[in-house]
């Protein structure tokens, strides 16, 4: 069984989990939600095994390297990180109502990675500049951080949905009533952003150390670097606003959505929209 087959299969397991979370939420069936959790853990396990298998395959091809080196592999690892971070949060805080968002995101990412003709999924040998342990640390920490931000922005959207309708009458029939309390959302948003911020900081630092050993420059203001700094500044603003100025709720929700838009732009926008302008865009 090849790794790409396993990973394509995982895509559909994510779809199943997302559907289970979604219907469990809509029709208030906690049994479905519990099933969704189990399916998600299964998918994460399979997904991890798929990535390991890809690693082994690369060694069989004679130029082994961790599966963290090209766009396809980053999508795969990113999707895995989002679901893992979500499941850890779910295990800790025990609310299953949010699962449909990260699982849908994981499904869409995996589907794009596995089936889009624009994404090259072949295992390729590493060019000399990419042969560095710093690169592995860089990719892992960045994507775990991105995953934290992704979950936080999902919580931000829920917060705004919930907050926009505060009518006390007929709470039961409204789907919004099944969103966790705004205090919980606020707290979880903060926790995820703190996690993401720490990991993004490690990611930027390991990237700088890698660049310094590969090209002799720890920072060169290329668009990718600059956008990662922009992202970092947005979250730094958010943390200072919350911890020192006491910002809560809607403002934090909006900032976590803006922050994740910056993440998306750093990851995808720079590659697809800015590449034409910059000869040095990688």
């Amino acid at each position, binding site marked *: 069984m090849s790794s790409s087959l396993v990973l394509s299969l995982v895509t559909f397991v994510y779809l199943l989990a997302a559907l289970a979370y979604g219907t469990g939420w809509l029709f208030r069936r906690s049994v479905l939600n519990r099933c969704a959790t189990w399916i998600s853990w299964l998918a994460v396990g399979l997904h991890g095994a798929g990535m390991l298998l890809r690693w082994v395959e690369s060694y069989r091809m004679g130029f082994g390297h961790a599966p963290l080196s090209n766009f396809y592999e980053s999508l795969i690892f990113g999707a895995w990180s989002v679901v893992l971070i979500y499941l850890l949060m779910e295990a800790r805080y025990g609310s299953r109502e949010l699962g449909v968002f990260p699982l849908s995101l994981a499904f869409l990412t995996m589907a794009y990675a596995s089936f889009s003709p624009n994404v090259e999924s072949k295992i390729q040998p590493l060019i000399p500049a990419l042969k560095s342990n710093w690169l592995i640390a860089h990719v892992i920490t960045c994507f775990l951080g991105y995953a934290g931000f992704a979950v936080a922005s999902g919580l931000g959207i829920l917060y705004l949905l919930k907050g926009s309708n505060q009518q006390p009458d007929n709470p039961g029939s409204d789907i919004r009533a099944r969103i966790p309390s705004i205090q919980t959302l606020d707290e979880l948003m903060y926790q995820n952003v703190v996690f993401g911020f720490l990991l993004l900081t490690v990611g930027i*630092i390991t990237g700088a150390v890698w660049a310094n050993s590969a090209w002799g420059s720890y920072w060169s203001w290329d668009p990718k670097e600059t956008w990662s700094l922009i992202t970092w500044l947005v979250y730094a603003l958010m943390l200072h606003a919350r911890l020192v100025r006491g910002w809560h709720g809607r403002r934090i929700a909006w900032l976590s959505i803006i922050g994740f838009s910056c993440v998306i732009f750093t990851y995808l926008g720079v590659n697809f929209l800015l590449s034409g302008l910059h000869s040095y865009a990688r």
Partner: protein
Amino acid sequence: MDQKSTIFDRIYQVFASVKLSLFLFGTLAATSIVGTLIPQESTVEQRLREYGPKLSAMIELLDLADMYHSWWFKVLLGLLTVNLIVCSLRRLPQTLTLLRAGNQTMDPARLEKMRHHGRIQLPVPLPESQRLLAARLGRRYSCQWQEREGGWQAVAEKGRSSRLAVYFVHLGVLLILGGALVGSIFGFRGFVTIPEHGAADRIFIGGKQQVLPLGFAIRCDKFTVDFYETGAPREFRSDVSILEHGDMIQQAAILVNDPFTYKGITFYQATYGSEPSNIILQLKDLTTGAGRRLEVPFRETIMIPGTKDRLVVMDYAENMGNHGPALFIAAAREYQQPASAWILVKQPEFHGNRIGDLAITVESFQNSFYTGLQVKKDPGVWVIYAGFSLMLLSMLLALYGSHRRLWLLLDHASGGTKIILGGHSSKHQAAFEREFTTLTQEIADLSAYRNTHV
């Protein structure tokens, strides 16, 4: 004088405010976007073509084509630095006061007003309760016990450093900015190409604008590049020797991701290429019929011996218009205009293999590699790395640590000891709530512990 101090005060107030920090974070983030949309380090002509005269004039005015080094971006960074220093210095004394606080005399009413508080009755005499509690709390908290009239009081705490961590995060940021400044003042970035078996004792800085002597020579003993089966490069490697006054001091290999440093100057494998060497030419003057065989170096002007004619091999093409390799040669002959031509190596009979009446055939040449090395000196890097480490470690502590404190009052009561305790945590209230509840339960169970184990 009064007026002056108010202005100073106002400026101080502005710099001491976190509002300014939020504003600067936002402004730096927003303006940084501009530099990713406008190509940096483009030429004036490119910008005129791309943006037209009006927009180009604006780009010139605000230095948007090199905006991360523009005066206004540096001003923003400078403001953030001052803001960070003033904010930290203003808040530090408050934090230190907070850390010292809590050791004042306690009264039960104050403790019971705390968010986390409890009251426990232990069926154990006061001195023994104190001993048991001290032993139990001492495992996880640092405690200060004090005997007072009719009983004991204690402050137990942990995670004090988390309150100070934020200042170390800021210090880390300052180290990073300082390291960047040190690098820009005392460092340089340059480039050098060295042919195989050749040596270089100077490098070029800023696109060949400026030559910098190294103080030693670096010789390329061997350059190797090898490829995967797919044709993608696997590894670039330069084996080099360091020479001082002609003596070989050290040998090293420079690979991508594995640079080599000598006397604070670091060499990075950047590019490579090939160029001809050991070029042997046959020259024939078509007017006089005089012939000559000559070895010439690449890109170095030589005098043709016995004449006043000069000659230089200026360029090399691997495949000239599908006629194979060719050399571009220029000659300046006495009493003639300088002229040049591409000389085809594999077709010596080609009628164009001549410059004026000087016919040239390339008898032989070798193709040899040259290596392109990025050269850098940056004494600020270690300051920056120290800043990275300090920032990361203290960020972990600042965001995940919390300063947790317990105040306890032990009083003699009929049949045992009355304990009142209050708790406070600087962060993570939910987690502290759990810890406090568990602890209260443990204290209540202390008597059982005594009965079974003591």
